[in-house]
């Protein structure tokens, strides 16, 4: 038997003779591999981003909002919007064993002024529980206390984006800003957190005590009304238990009978995000599967060219056989030729795929991640394509009758 290195040299020479044809044949594989890599990178990037956001929003979260889940928007009136109260939040914290932290919220948008700078941002009235609930901490200063909430003191915590816009590089702690013309003392600055999954800047926010927002900023229709309650379960395993406990508790507190519709909804944020992450992954895989069809087409291109090449080189095959080439000598020669085509195509395709991912990030602004596994997979797959589609032409070549091959015109 002839050695692999010699066979490889023979194959390379044959490919060099028809440079243009070899390049065009590789193009199919290049495009296929490039597309698969790019699609996998887009999919991986998207799901990685979602899981990063999931971590930044806070883990094991439930959010209780007013309104009915079953009747959609139809029954939503101003009355049904006002079903959740600060007392509900306190009751949840007190009575649901699966819950670790609770943050009721009353929010709105307002103009904030400091010196000659002004900035419009979301104001969240809440309780100190907001920080543990959202896995958030302070960059400087202190958090407002339950005392502040009871007394409706005019203090606030600023998000990083607000600080950047109003203060630049100066230290805001201890300064006074005006929210809706009401003076608030800045007592702390929140750590930078980044964007939510919907591309919303989480750092563009101000936290104030719940009661302050209700009474001094947004004028709640009645004392103690909240717009939503964010709840953190003790662990991921207890999320569903917490959901059940909250539903039961609020059903009792709101005196809702067993056959009546609920006037609130408990949403599982983590579950929603996980579902989204999963569907993104599925989407990415689907795209990659579609892209791999082009890899298949590339493989058929290789087979086509190899068949042409076998026919063109029938005499060469005859000559080789007449001096003693065996079945596998001939077979290996053509298989390695196909493999060389597909693997070089694979490598160029990987480079193309990586650049393609970068271009997608640049143009569409999507995060893309080229995982080493996808590169390995694409390379291996292109090799398989070469083997698979190279085998038949190689088999055909090896089965030629030496006499017929020698006399082929």
């Amino acid at each position, binding site marked *: 038997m002839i*050695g692999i290195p010699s066979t490889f040299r023979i194959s390379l020479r044959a490919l060099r003779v028809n440079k243009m044809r070899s390049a065009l044949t590789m193009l199919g594989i290049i495009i296929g591999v490039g597309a698969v890599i790019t699609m996998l990178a887009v999919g991986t990037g998207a799901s990685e981003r979602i899981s990063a956001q999931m971590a930044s929003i806070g883990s094991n979260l439930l959010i209780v909002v007013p309104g009915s889940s079953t009747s959609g928007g139809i029954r939503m009136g101003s009355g049904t919007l006002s079903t959740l109260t600060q007392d509900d939040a306190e009751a949840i914290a007190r009575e649901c064993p699966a819950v670790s932290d609770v943050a009721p919220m009353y929010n709105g948008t307002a103009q904030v002024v400091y010196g000659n700078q002004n900035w419009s941002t979301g104001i969240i009235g809440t309780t100190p529980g907001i920080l543990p609930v959202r896995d958030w901490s302070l960059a400087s200063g202190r958090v407002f206390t339950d005392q502040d909430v009871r007394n409706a003191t005019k203090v606030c915590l600023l998000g990083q984006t607000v600080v950047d816009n109003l203060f630049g590089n100066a230290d805001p702690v201890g300064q006074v800003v005006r929210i809706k013309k009401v003076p608030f003392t800045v007592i702390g600055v929140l750590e930078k957190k980044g964007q939510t999954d919907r591309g919303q800047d989480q750092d563009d926010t101000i936290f104030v005590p719940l009661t302050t927002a209700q009474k001094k900023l947004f004028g709640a229709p009645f004392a103690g009304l909240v717009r939503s309650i964010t709840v953190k379960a003790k662990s991921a395993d207890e999320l569903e238990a917490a959901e059940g406990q909250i539903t039961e508790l609020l059903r009792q507190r709101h005196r809702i009978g067993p056959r009546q519709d609920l006037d609130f909804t408990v949403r599982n944020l983590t579950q929603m995000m996980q579902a989204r992450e999963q569907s993104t992954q599925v989407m990415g895989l689907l795209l990659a599967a579609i892209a791999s069809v082009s890899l298949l087409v590339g493989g058929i291109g290789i087979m086509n060219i190899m068949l042409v090449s076998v026919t063109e080189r029938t005499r060469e095959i005859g*000559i080789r056989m*007449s001096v*003693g*080439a*065996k079945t596998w000598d001939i077979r290996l020669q053509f298989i390695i030729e196909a493999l060389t085509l597909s693997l070089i195509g694979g490598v160029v395709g990987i480079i193309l795929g990586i650049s393609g991912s970068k271009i997608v990030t640049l143009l569409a602004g999507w995060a893309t991640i080229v995982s080493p596994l996808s590169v390995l997979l694409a390379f291996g797959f292109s090799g398989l394509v070469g083997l698979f589609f190279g085998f038949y032409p190689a088999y055909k070549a090896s089965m030629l009758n030496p006499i017929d091959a020698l006399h082929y015109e």
Partner: protein
Amino acid sequence: MVLIETHHLTKIYELGDSTVHALNDVSLTVAHGEFLAIMGPSGSGKSTFMNVIGCLDVPTGGQYLLDGMDIGRRSRDELAELRNKKIGFVFQGFNLLPRTTALENVELPMLYDGCSPRERRERAMDALKAMGLQGREHHHPNQLSGGQQQRVAIARALVNRAPVILADEPTGNLDTRSSVEIMELVVKLNRESRITVILVTHEQDIAAFSRRIVKFRDGRVVSDEPVKQAE
């Protein structure tokens, strides 16, 4: 000592409803070191006979012994091995690989024999030198004259130390001068290296270089005579 021995060899081609007896009961014995010329009209089965004894083709019937071994019912790879080790072919059309140097063409049989690259190179260089082709090692076939190409082919036939050279009209594409040069080389190989030569030719002048002439007609051997040595 007998090198090639055929008994009642037949080769039948079926073409639609007509059958062609390309070989019809050919029994022939060739000893080591002989120099045989095969002659006969076109279509008489000369090439068919050469292909069968060269293990390129299998007979329809009869027996063929090469160096004492029965060649009937051998696998493709066994036949390839025999061609590699025992047979050196020289064809009318040279049959060199295009775009491949003379040296690499001569190395080809050793490539399929598992020789080390160094040994391949050395032996191929020696074979080319023996054919008077030093300095032409790196020429491609299309950069060589017909006579030179045929000498490359002979070097390739010899390089694996095959005991027999089968030459099917080796001078058919050459002018008289090159033909004589080739034949003188072949005679020298036969005399000095004791290589058995079986040669197909249409020309009496070429056949005259041999020592025994076998004539074919319609797939049969019709005469088998030694050449009178004209001193």
